[in-house]
């Protein structure tokens, strides 16, 4: 039985997610460039991490004991920037500089430019290795912070992801939580079109990660309560890293963007933006 205050918190986080989605759509429309589908699918995961799960100090972004976060699927950068801005790392107003020249908000995250970014990413499959290094480093230095890393399902076609999975299990990195944004869609379609289903990659992430010796959890990646609970569960596991398979919907929140691969990196025009924002308003 959920307490009133717990339910209030969930409602508040959901509102934050909705606000994030609005800002993502407005920012990409304003920039005239950027990704849409992935950022909308990963939003609730980021909100849960930054507004509840992670131990961080936005006014002290390099605090040595902070929990680390790596967005391995770096092309969802605009979602991360929006959440960081809402969490107080930098002014929300600065989102308007996204993708512009001299901006700290690069198309893909640049850790040298923006406070709060723990790793530069963009080329797929790489962030998870850096996260493994952070978690391993914490063990070596006997620090108690946790490391969180969001990977994509498409990204997991990179062999490096599984090299990293191997090493993380070998070093028993129970301070590492990898969350897979399992939106089942990528740039040029994943579901296949009529008669072309054989092109779908054979993929069962739960079995794969389990075979690599990880603690595997599967959740609804748009349910902030489930996301928070999974991260809490991960903390109770000893001797192995945790992967959370977060089932998500690419383009979540806007009906005409949901499950439509053409919205991977398409810029909404004024009309589409208006329709999308109206839907988001109705949703909350």
């Amino acid at each position: 039985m959920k307490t009133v205050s717990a339910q209030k918190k969930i409602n508040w986080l959901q509102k934050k997610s909705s606000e994030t989605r609005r800002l993502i759509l407005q920012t990409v429309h304003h920039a005239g460039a950027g990704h849409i589908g992935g950022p909308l699918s990963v939003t609730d995961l980021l909100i849960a991490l930054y507004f509840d799960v992670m131990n961080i100090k936005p006014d002290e972004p390099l605090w040595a004991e902070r929990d680390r976060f790596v967005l391995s699927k770096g092309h969802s950068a605009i979602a991360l920037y929006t959440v960081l801005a809402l969490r107080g790392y930098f002014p929300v107003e600065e989102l308007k500089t996204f993708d512009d020249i001299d901006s700290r908000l690069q198309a893909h995250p640049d850790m040298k430019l923006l406070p709060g970014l723990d790793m530069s990413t963009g080329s797929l499959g790489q962030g998870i290795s850096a996260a493994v290094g952070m978690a391993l480093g914490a063990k070596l230095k006997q620090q108690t912070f946790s490391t969180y890393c969001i990977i994509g399902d498409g990204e997991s076609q990179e062999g490096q992801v599984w090299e990293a999975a191997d090493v993380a299990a070998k070093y028993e990195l129970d301070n590492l939580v990898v969350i897979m944004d399992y939106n089942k869609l990528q740039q040029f379609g994943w579901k296949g079109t009529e008669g072309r289903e054989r092109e779908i990659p054979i993929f069962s992430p739960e079995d794969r990660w389990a075979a690599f010796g990880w603690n595997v959890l599967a959740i609804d990646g748009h349910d902030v309560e489930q996301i928070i609970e999974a991260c809490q569960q991960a903390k109770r596991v000893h001797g192995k890293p945790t992967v959370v398979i977060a089932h998500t919907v690419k383009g979540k929140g806007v009906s005409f963007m949901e499950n439509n691969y053409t919205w991977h990196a398409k810029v909404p025009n004024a009309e589409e933006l208006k329709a999308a924002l109206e839907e988001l308003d109705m949703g909350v």
Partner: protein
Amino acid sequence: MQLQLDKKVAMRDAFGETLLQFTKDDPRVYAVDGDLATSTRLDKVAEGNPAKFLQMGIAEQNMLGVASGLATVGLQPWVCTFAAFIVKRSLDQIAVTIAQPKLDVKMIGAYSGLLTGCTGKTHQGLEDIAIMRSLANMVVLAPADAVEVKKVMEFARDYHGPVYIRLARDPLPTLFAEETHTFTPGKGVKLIEGQDVTIISTGTQTGRAVQAANLLRAAGIQAGVLHLPSIKPIDVEAIVEAAERTGAVVATEEHSIYGGLGSAVAEVLVEHKPVPMTRVGVRDLNSESGPNDALLKKYQIAVEDIVRGAKEVLQRKEKENV
């Protein structure tokens, strides 16, 4: 300069011993292996200070990524595998997660060049200088003997940022005295003074350059030798000074002629002091396995090839002066 031919020491031995000492002296320093420790001598750390040895298995992409993560929490990983693998199998990882964010990761390309113990073209490292030199923020170093290996490593340990160090497998004649030799990034080392032609060399090729200069001297040609252990940053002043003084330059390296030391020297000369120049390195060829002497001869980077290069460039200089 006379080489101490009787005192041959392998760079990899100096590397393993020095790194072991670093791991004992400096809490930040860790050795990171891609399962080649017995070849690269990283096994010295595995045996002498096992708590500071991290085994990443045969998976270079992840190995370099893990190193970047270790660096972000204040550790200093020294990643070592063969030059061919560290540079080519994990190039994008180095570019995105190490070079661009300028993280404090040391990358050691053991088994560079042609002489990799009869392992052939897959294990030889002939493109590492060219590739690493093109990455933003990367420091690229190629010491010439075991003494200089230690000096270069001391610099790398004290410098905060990505450094690539090129090493070699087999014992090499000693050039420098441990008590007096120093290393400064971006500074060359004048080994022999000469008025007729300057041989500019790096890494393992410097010993051969000295031998070539000695042969040339016997033939009445005063050849200078300028050793450049620091390829990036490079000693522009010393290169220009050599060109002004001798008016002819041979750049030589145990590396491809494309993009390596020869290219770096040519870039400096073209911009500051064009003089007749030639490159003595491996041409546009796939190499093979074979004994050291045979490889140096067939791929035209032996002492005699440097001598021939010097004579050729001298002829061009004289023709221009007529």
